[in-house]
Structure formats: C-alpha cells, structure tokens
C-alpha cells in the first residue's frame, strides 16, 4: 500500500512483515507473540489465529489472561485449561479449524507434579504450603507454565499451528529465562543446603556446602523461624525426586522455541516505552538465537487527509474561528477543559455559538491537526526503532476507534495485519 497516509516516508522504510506468508507456510508451527503489557498481544494472537484458520490451518490459540470479552468475541463463555473449538464465522471451502484455550497455571503445574511423581509423593507436594504459594503465584511460574503448555500442545500433534500469547511479564526476560532459571534454581547451592539435612546427617553434608554452614542455618532459623525452615525443607526434598524430569522438559521447551518451525512476533505500539521494550525483546531474541519474524505495530494513527499538514489545518481552523475559539481550545488540554463525565463538548458548542462560521469545519480541522501531530510523534519513535533494528520486518495495524469484541473485529485486525 502506498499513499499519503503511510506512517513512514520512503528511505527509512523497514522491510515489510508479511503475516499471510508466515501463517500460510506449513512449516510455521508455532507463533509466539511477545511484548510489554497493554500493547494488544492477546488481540493480535487471536486475530492471527482466526485468519490462519480461515486460510486453512488447524490452529490453537493459547492465551494467558484475556479480557472476558475477548473470550466472548471468540464465541466462548469461558476459557479453561482445555482447548475449546471456536466456530468460524464463514466455513468457506478453504477453512481449517480454530481452538482457543486459556492457561490455568495452577492446574498445569499440578498435572506436571502428578505426571512426574508417584501418587504418595505427589499428594505430599500438592499439600505443601510452599507448593501452593509457588503454583498459584504469578512470579515466574506463569511464564514457565505457558512454555510447558506450549510443549504439551506441540507434542499432542492435533494442530498444525499454535499461536501463543506470552504473559505480561514484569521484565521481557522472564519467559525466556523461566526454563533456565528453574534449572539454575534446582542446581543451586541453596537447594543442596536445604536438602542436605534430610538426606544425610552429621559431618557428611558439611562437605556438600561451603564453610559457614552453621552460621547460615542459624540465620535462616532466626529469620524464617524453625517451623518455616522445616516446611521449606520438606517441600524441597519432595520436589527433589522429580527435579530431573522437570529440568529436561524445561530444556526441551527452550530448544523447541529455537527450532525452525517457531516464529516470534514482537508486538508494540508506536510509543517510546513499548518500543523500548520491543527493542529489548529483539536484542534478547537474537542473543538467544530465537527466530524473530518481525514487529507488529498496533494502534498506528493514520489519516485519509494526510496531504493537509497540521500547521495548515490549524491555521485554517483559526481563520474560521479567531480569538475566542482559539482561547477556548487552548483550555482543552487541561482537565478543566475536558470537563469530566458530563461537560464534554461545552467548548465546541460554545465556539459554534459565539465566534465561528462553519463550526463543524473548524472542529474537523482542529481534530485533523491533532491527529497529524500524533502521527508525527508516532513516526518519530517508530523511526527510532527502525534505525536501531533496520533489518526487522514491520507490519502496522491502524488504531481502531472501538475495542474489539467479536469475530468480525478480529477479522478486521487480521486483515490489517496482512495489509501491513
């Protein structure tokens, strides 16, 4: 697409991310959507999944924490830990199938424990207060469980394309690090220290840990209390038996992410914070040799009248509505001008009444100037990203006036993703 409303002038244009080519390629088996919170990751994942299904793929979308209305948008009253079929709007000749599921972190974790420990040991672990805290908390566990579930779906071989939406991590590193962090944690000296007393006694375990062991346990007892230390030790000892299997799976999943059939999409909005995070992802993915397909830029502002610049538009608005209109408008930037829940529009109708000829045209011109200014800011931050990562293909999704809440909305987003 070319035209005056494009975000970038020629010259700093990044390669185009061709999403249809990506989802149509049967070798693409996993698409991972990552990015900071609030950039539309889940919506992008759902829209891509729907489009791929409409184009003949058998797709499952794994999401972590969708808005309820997004679940409803896919015709599901709830999403649980099982893939649920989503009826496609128009089952054309080429149509494949679409399933969607939402990760239940605790249930996924419980299933791993049950699969890796004998029933008695599993029951012991499941009842431990530390296990309950670990398995239902968000810190790190969710990232790991999302990757675990991804591995399970892949092994099930029921779908030829898995689209996964990553958790809104505190840090970009979390989901990539989860498997390794788990391994490091399980191999750590602290674990050996904690498990040692239950495995051996007397001087034997003193060799396992470094000098100062007495001091350390002394401190732990003092700070944690004896009861808590005992619970930790019981928990760690119980988990110990299944450590091997755990680690192996974590490493399998990590390798799966590096495999040729996987494509990472970094999702962002044209705002400094989101693009800074996106840069971080891009660098991290390359460092870990993870296959990056490109950047999806959501909520890009566009204008069908981009030939009219902000300055000219504003000058024209002022020509129609001099002094009074201008003064009132300047107040709009403050909350007093916005007027809270009921007072909207007071300024504009006031303008129309007092000063303006053609009040609607003046308003339209002011709005257009604002839009052009926003576009200029967005262009600047996007170019900044492209300058730093010139080889990363980009597709842009125009800002939508309303939130997406049905399949038609997802279809629109999917088409925009393809159009770039």
């Amino acid at each position: 697409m070319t035209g005056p409303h494009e975000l970038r002038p020629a010259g700093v244009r990044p390669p185009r991310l061709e999403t249809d080519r990506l989802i149509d390629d049967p070798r693409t088996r996993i698409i991972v959507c990552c990015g900071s919170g609030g950039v539309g990751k889940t919506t992008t994942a759902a829209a891509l999944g729907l489009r791929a299904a409409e184009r003949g793929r058998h797709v499952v979308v794994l999401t972590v924490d969708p808005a309820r209305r997004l679940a409803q948008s896919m015709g599901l009253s709830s999403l649980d830990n099982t893939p649920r079929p989503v009826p496609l709007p128009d089952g054309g000749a080429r149509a494949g199938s679409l399933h969607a599921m939402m990760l239940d972190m605790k249930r996924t974790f419980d299933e791993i424990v049950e699969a890796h420990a004998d029933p008695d040991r599993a029951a012991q672990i499941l009842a431990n207060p530390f296990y309950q805290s670990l398995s239902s908390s968000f810190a790190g566990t969710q990232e790991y469980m999302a990757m675990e579930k991804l591995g399970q779906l892949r092994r099930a071989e029921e779908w030829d394309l898995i689209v996964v939406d990553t958790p809104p991590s505190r840090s970009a590193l979390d989901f990539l690090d989860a498997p390794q962090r788990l391994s490091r944690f399980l191999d750590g000296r602290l674990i050996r220290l904690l498990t040692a007393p239950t495995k051996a006694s007397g001087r034997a375990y003193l060799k396992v840990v470094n000098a100062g062991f007495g001091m350390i346990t002394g401190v732990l007892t003092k700070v944690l209390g004896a009861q808590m230390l005992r619970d930790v030790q019981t928990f760690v000892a119980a988990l110990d038996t299944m450590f091997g299997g755990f680690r192996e799976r974590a490493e399998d999943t990590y390798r799966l992410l590096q495999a040729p059939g996987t494509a990472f999409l970094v999702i962002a909005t044209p705002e400094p914070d989101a693009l800074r995070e996106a840069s971080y992802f891009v660098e991290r993915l390359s460092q870990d040799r993870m296959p990056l397909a490109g950047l999806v830029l959501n909520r890009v502002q566009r204008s069908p009248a981009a030939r009219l610049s902000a300055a000219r538009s504003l000058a024209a608005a002022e020509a129609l509505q001099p002094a009074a209109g201008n003064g009132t408008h300047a107040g709009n930037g403050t909350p007093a001008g916005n007027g809270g829940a009921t007072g909207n529009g007071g300024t504009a109708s006031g303008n129309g009444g007092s000063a303006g000829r053609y009040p609607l045209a003046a308003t339209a011109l002011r709005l257009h100037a604002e839009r052009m200014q926003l576009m200029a800011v967005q262009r600047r931050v996007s170019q900044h990203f492209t300058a730093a990562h010139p080889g990363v293909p980009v597709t842009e999704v125009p800002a939508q006036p309303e939130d997406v809440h049905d399949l038609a909305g997802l279809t629109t987003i999917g088409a925009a993703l393809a159009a770039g």
Partner: protein
Amino acid sequence: MTARDTDWEGVRLHVVTGKGGTGKTTVAAALALALAADGGTVLLMEVEGRQGIAQLFDRPPLPYEERKVAVAPGAPGVPGGDVYALAADPESALIEYLEMFYNLRHAGRALTRLGVVDFATTIAPGLRDVLLTGKAAEGARRKAGSRFKYQAVVLDAPPTGRIGQFLNVAGEISGLARVGPIRGHADTVQSVIASPQTAIHFVTLLEEMPVQETLDGLAELRGLPQGGLQPGAEPGGAGPGGVQPGGSQPGGIQPAGVQPWLFHPGGIMINMVPPVDLPADQLTALAAGRADQDELALGLKAAGLDEPAGAEAGLAASLADELAEHARGALAQREQRERLARAGQPCYELPLIPEGMDLAGLYRLAAALREQGAA
C-alpha cells in the same frame, strides 16, 4: 499543614497500580510532584526493577538509595518541596531488613550470594512482596526528629492483576509461616497497608480492558467476588479512605466475620484523556457518519484551503471520515467513563500529552491532580 482540602488528607502511603500500558509510573511520579507542591518531602518508590522513574526524570539508573530527583512546582508564596526516589529490590531490602532487625548485614550478603532471595522469589513471592511493601511502610513511618521524614510515600506498585496478592502480605505469608519473625514482620507491614493511612489508587485509560481491570481490582480490594460490583450501587458512605461500616457494602452482602474494606481504595486516575472537541449532542450523528459534507466543504473553502477543482470535496469527505472515527472513539470513551463513575471512587482526569512525556508533561499532570483535589 495547608488550608487546601484534598481528597486524601491523612494518607501517608499512596499505592499506585494499573494495567500495563496505562502509564502507572508516570501517574505515580505526577502524584509525588503534586503531593510535594506544598513544600513537603515526598518519596517515590518503584519495586519492579524497571528503572521507570529514572527514565521519566531522565537520570541514570537509580541505586538502592533515596535520591532527590525533582523539585515540585511551588504554589504562589510557597516553595515546592523535594521528590526523592528509590528503586527498591528484594535483595537490598532483605540485607537492610536483616541489618535493621538482627544486625546481620554480613549474613545477609552471604544469603544473597547463596541465592536465598532468588529462592524466595521462586518458591514464595509473598516473601519477596513483604520485603518490598515493608520498605514502603517503613518509609511512610520513618521519623526525622519529631516529624515524619516524608510527608508521603508514593509506591509505583505492580500491575492491577497482581495488586491484591502484592498487598495481602500477611495473608500470603500466613500459609507459609504460622508463627515466627517473618510472620510478625508481615503482620506489622499489613497493619500499615490496611490502615486508613494507605490508599490504593488505580490508573486506567478510557478503554475497555483497563477499565475492566480497574473494576475487578476495586472489587478484589473490597473483598467482593470479581465483577460483583452492582451497576449503579451507591459508593461507600464513609468517603475516601474511610473505614467502611459493613452494612453499606455495595451489593449489601457481607459474610459474617469477614472484615470489610481490608484495604482502602483510593482514586481512579483516568490517564491520557484525549481532548474532546465534538459537541456532545452531535456525537451519535457524527459517529454514524452523518457529518454535513457540504458544510465542511464550504468551511474549507472559507478557510482558504484552496485545492484544485473537485479536491475540496475529497478533503471534506476525508475529514468527515476522521470526524466519524473520532466520534465513535468519543462515544466508546463516554461509556467507559460512565462505568468508572459507577465504581464509587473519586475519578481524576489527566490529559493526553501529545508531545510525549517529559518533565514539563509531568508538571502538567501534577497540576491537574492538584486542581482536582487528588493532592
């Protein structure tokens, strides 16, 4: 201290949460500036290791040390106070805690080297959270002589999805430590966080998902099942930060023995509010695409936007499309604003700063918060 009435008189710890992408850190910083405007010293604290405060104030990454990052804009005749900032991390908080309570600084370092904190983060995030909330509570209660060191502490807290868990430190810890020093510490911290001296503010945009998270978060703080807020229910009668009598709970049902209002919900900060230029009574018509294109074309001509013959119509049609899109957005925002208004907490509106956020933008947001009585 001042003659001004603010909505959060007596609140010493302001916890700011919000969905990712809503500008939680920005609003927390603006609130800190607004609170310091009367000349007091305010501590702005972040806990997620993102160094968002340093970026906002254009400074190198903050260490685990309280540093002055800004001077608040003063009122006429009153010089503005200072804003200090702290990037708290669990490791440093643990070492400090061990030193403060047990005089065990070296042992703390040894524990950190052994990975105790990594361990705690992994198996019991409640332990991590209690270290961080404990630091905020300590800042809010610290004395310098007979006065408080900080007039207020503003905590840039984890996102809404995790806020209940983050604040409920005693609850999270109680399953792990029934007795003992950690439990004691958690109980002390909880007594500060659940007191009327602490208010939990929500940052949102006028978009459906952040608004839904705000309403869910408020419901969680109020101990109601998610989504349990009755549309149109009267807000709690005790007012902002007030202790709520059980009887006037929204929805009216309060299980016996459960303390209502475990936490004190604060304000709803609606961030990035776009300036609304369209007359309210025309929104629906404009949204439906019924802008008068002839009038627009005449207006453009009158404004001197002379284009080649026939092009005015094209421009008018394009602008009409933009008007319709803008009106649809404004209608959707109005619906979200009404949902927030029904939540029964004071709402504050912060303007969209189109040029991007910098110190000048922060000052504007701080002024907006003060004008509306949030600080």
